[in-house]
């Protein structure tokens, strides 16, 4: 089964713009294409919650049956722990679907944006999750605003 597919549906503008700002201090743009996201499915073989950049290795089985080892790069431990992550947030042996920014040369490597477990639970990059929280705050504030009164 081919487990690598381009995920055009995930190319939402908010995601693209937020990466430009949030990751600028680590210059991820030098390696990863912030304008594209792709999704791969595989089995985790290792997750390292370390600084400066956390890493995950996953085995992805291609249509031919060949297993390709993908590297998923995250923000550093200092970012992820602020979002509540621990060394056990991702464990070896679990099957996941992960979405991220591909490299400019399309090597088997991603910059992490989100992952989904078979039970549907989704884990989002903490910095993106913060922006989602703020958008939710803005939406609620708009709903609380009294409706404008039109003049007679």
């Amino acid at each position: 089964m081919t487990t690598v597919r381009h995920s055009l549906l995930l190319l939402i503008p908010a995601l693209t713009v937020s990466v430009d700002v949030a990751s600028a201090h680590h210059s991820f743009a030098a390696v990863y294409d912030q304008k594209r996201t792709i999704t791969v499915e595989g089995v985790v073989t290792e997750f390292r919650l370390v600084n400066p950049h956390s890493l995950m290795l996953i085995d992805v089985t291609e249509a031919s049956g060949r297993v390709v080892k993908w590297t998923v790069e995250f923000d550093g431990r200092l970012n992820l722990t602020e979002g509540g992550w621990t060394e056990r947030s991702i464990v070896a042996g679990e099957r996941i679907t992960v979405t991220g920014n591909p490299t400019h040369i399309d090597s088997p490597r991603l910059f992490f944006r989100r992952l989904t477990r078979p039970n549907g639970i989704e884990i989002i990059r903490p910095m993106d999750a913060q922006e989602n929280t703020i958008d939710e705050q803005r939406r609620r504030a708009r709903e609380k605003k009294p409706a404008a009164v039109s003049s007679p």
Partner: protein
Amino acid sequence: MHRISAVIATVGVVLACAASATGQSPQTFEGMWSDPPVTPEDNFCSWWCTDAGVERLRALLADPANDARPFGQLVAEANAHQENQYIRPRLSAAALKTYPLDVATDPGFTRCEPWGFARQVTSRHQLQIRRTGPDRLEMRYGEWDAHRIVYLDGRPRPAGQAPTLMGHSVGRYEGGALVIETSGVAPSWTQFRSAHSDQLRTIERYTRSADGQRLQLSLSMTDPWGLREPVVLKKVWRWAPGAEIAPYKDCQRPNESATRK
């Protein structure tokens, strides 16, 4: 009863005098700080921001035309505004030659080189402030697990001392603020991605909110080589006693950046 009150008052006066003599602040800054609460302005200033950028962000958030636009887009716009309208006009011709630092050649990324003082001082995430002696504070940053010493005894920078990555910092308490002056910083990069020289001078002014939960920094930078006029950056942290700083290890140089399309 009167005697007990008098003793308590005397002890209080003695302690106050002792605190003054050792330079202790009436409002301590010591402890662990980290990323601020998730609100629009604090998110924007959890790294570095300027008054111009904050003003722009407020205007964007207040405009109903932007209600449907994601916050990330507004931040990007406010960030571009502060870079183009505030930072760029203050850069010298010499600094503009390499501005902004190309991400593909950023030494912190491509060569795993720790950041210098001007980049480190407004880095995101943890900041631990510790009193490590009667005459000094230690400031430890989550980013790069970097350390710096802030001398509280007013000692001048040793004559002939070569500039260093973190420079020479001398601090004092002014009312409720911790004020730190730094010089002797080796040429490197600022957080807003411009080069600076060893003539960089900075004044950090830390204040703590009335409820003690927020730490605010105002950082004034001058550099006759790199800046036409002073640049003032702002940053905020929240009180985070449970936060930890993890070591930096296994920094890997990317081997794919040179082949960027």
